C-alpha cells in the first residue's frame, strides 16, 4: 500500500512537471515574441478531436437519450408523470451525462490517438530530434493537443446534450404522446443556467485531464511497439478513471455549494 501511494504521488508529480514544462516552453516562445504554439497544428488537432468526434458523440448520446427517456418514462407513467421526461433528460445531460459521456468518448478516441502518435514518435526518436533542434517538443507537440482537447470538450458536450434531447424527444413523441413542440417547452422550463455552466466547466476540466494524461503517456513511452501499446492502454484507463473521479469530486463540491 505504501509503495502504491508513493508510485501514485510520483505519477502526479511527473504530470505536474510535464504541465509546468509545457507552460514554460510556451512562455519562452512568447518572450521571444513568437506564437506560444504552432497554430496550424492546433487547428489540425481541433479538427481531429472536435469535428472528428461529432458523429460518435452524437450517436452515443442519441442512443443514451433514447434509453434514458424510455426507462424513466415507463417508471413515471405509473405515477402519471410522463411530462417530467423532457426535464429529466435535459437536466441529467446538461449537468452530468453530456460532459461525462463526451469525456469518456474523447478519452477512448482522441486520447488513445494522442498517446499512440506521440509514443510512436518517441520510440522512433522523432521527439528527440525535435528536442535536439531546440524546438521544444512540449510546446510543439503537446500544447496544441492539450489545448484542442480543453476547447473541444465543451463544444462536444453541447453536441451530446442536443443529440440526447433529440433521442428523448423521439421517444416522448412515440411512446408518451408528447409533441416535439411541447417537449421543447418542457425542456426550457426545466433547464437552469447553473446546470448548463456546471456541465461546461466540468467538460473543460475533463478536456485538460484527457489531453495531459494522453500526451504524457505518449511522451513517456519506452520499449518500442509493445511500450506504445502498453502506454495507450494505460492512457485510456487512467483518463477514463480520472474523468469519472473528477466528475464525482465536482458533484460533491457543487452539491455542497448549491444545494
Amino acid at each position, binding site marked *: 500500500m505504501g509503495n502504491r501511494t508513493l508510485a501514485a504521488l510520483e505519477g502526479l508529480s511527473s504530470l505536474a512537471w510535464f504541465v509546468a514544462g509545457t507552460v514554460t516552453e510556451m512562455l519562452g516562445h512568447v518572450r521571444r515574441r513568437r506564437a506560444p504554439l504552432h497554430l496550424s497544428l492546433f487547428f489540425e488537432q481541433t479538427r481531429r478531436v472536435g469535428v472528428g468526434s461529432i458523429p460518435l458523440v452524437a450517436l452515443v448520446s442519441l442512443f443514451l437519450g433514447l434509453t434514458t427517456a424510455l426507462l424513466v418514462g415507463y417508471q413515471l407513467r405509473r405515477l402519471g408523470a410522463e411530462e417530467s421526461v423532457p426535464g429529466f433528460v435535459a437536466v441529467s445531460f446538461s449537468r452530468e451525462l453530456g460532459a461525462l459521456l463526451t469525456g469518456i468518448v474523447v478519452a477512448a478516441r482522441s486520447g488513445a490517438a494522442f498517446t499512440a502518435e506521440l509514443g510512436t514518435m518517441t520510440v522512433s526518436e522523432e521527439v528527440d530530434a525535435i528536442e535536439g*533542434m531546440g524546438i521544444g517538443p512540449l510546446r510543439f507537440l503537446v500544447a496544441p493537443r492539450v489545448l484542442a482537447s480543453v476547447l473541444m470538450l465543451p463544444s462536444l458536450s453541447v453536441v451530446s446534450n442536443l443529440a440526447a434531447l433529440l433521442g428523448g424527444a423521439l421517444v416522448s413523441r412515440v411512446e408518451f404522446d408528447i409533441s416535439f413542440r411541447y417537449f421543447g417547452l418542457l425542456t426550457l422550463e426545466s433547464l437552469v443556467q447553473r446546470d448548463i455552466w456546471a456541465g461546461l466547466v466540468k467538460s473543460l476540466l475533463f478536456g485538460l485531464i484527457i489531453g495531459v494524461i494522453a500526451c504524457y503517456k505518449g511522451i513517456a513511452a519506452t520499449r518500442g511497439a509493445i511500450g506504445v501499446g502498453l502506454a495507450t492502454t494505460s492512457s485510456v484507463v487512467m483518463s477514463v478513471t480520472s474523468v469519472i473521479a473528477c466528475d464525482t469530486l465536482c458533484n460533491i463540491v457543487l452539491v455542497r455549494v448549491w444545494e
Partner: protein
Amino acid sequence: MSAAAPLLQVRDLRFRYEGKPVLDGCTFDVGRDERLAILGASGSGKSTLLRLILGILRPESGTIRFEDRDLAGLRTEELNAARQKIGMVFQGAALISSLTVAENLALPLKELTDKPAKEIDDVVDAKLDLVGMRRTKDQLPAELSGGMRKRIGVARALVLEPELILFDEPSSGLDPVGTTEIDELILTLGERTKASCVVVTHNMPSAFRIATRMAMLHEGAVLEEGPPEAFRSSKNPVVRQFVAGDTDGPLGREPDDERPA
C-alpha cells in the same frame, strides 16, 4: 576563446541508466574542422554520449564545453540556443513522419528563425541539392528508402548551418553501396560547410574512410584516441580485437549471449 581551442571539450562525463554506469569518466576533445570517429561495441554508450552532448540527457557529473560554455549547466532556453549550432543525424534519421521532406527541413527554420518563406524555400532547396535529394521534396519519409532518409536527415541537420554535426551510426541498416555514399557525403560536408563532425560507429571500414581522428569507448571511458593509422597498429588488445573484428579477446560476449556450439 583562442583560435586553437577545441570546439567541444568533454571532461570526466558520468552517466547512469537505471543505476548502471554507462559513461564513467569519459574525456575527449573535438577540434575545429575535425572528423572524430567514436568507436565502441554495441551498448558501450556511444549513442548516449551524443544525446548528452545535445542535451537530450543530462549527465550525472562532468562538463561538456561547447564554444567555451558548459552545455550541461545551461537553462533550457540557453541550451536551445546552443543546440542551433549543433546538428544531429539520428540512427534511423528520425524525420517527422507526418511532414514531407521539404517540411521536415523547413521546420527548424520556421520555428527558430525569422527568415521569410521564400528564403526558407531557398535554404531547403540548397540543402537538398547538397545531399542530392531535391526530387524527394514533396514525399513523405515513409515513401523513401533507408539511405534516402539518412541523406534527408543530413540535410535537415545542415539547415541551421551548425558548427558541429553529430552522426549516430550513419551506416546502420545500409548496404555497402549506401554506406559508401553516406561516408562520401560526410567527407564532402567537411569541405563545403567547414563544420566539425563526431561520427559514432562500429563499422570499421566506414570509420577509417571518414575519420581524421578516432576514439575508442570502452567501459564508459575513452580507452584510446589518436589518428586512424595509430588505431591500425594499436598494441591495446581491446582496440586490436575491435578493429580486426575477432571473436577471441577481451571484448567477449556476455555469458547470457553465448549459444551452445
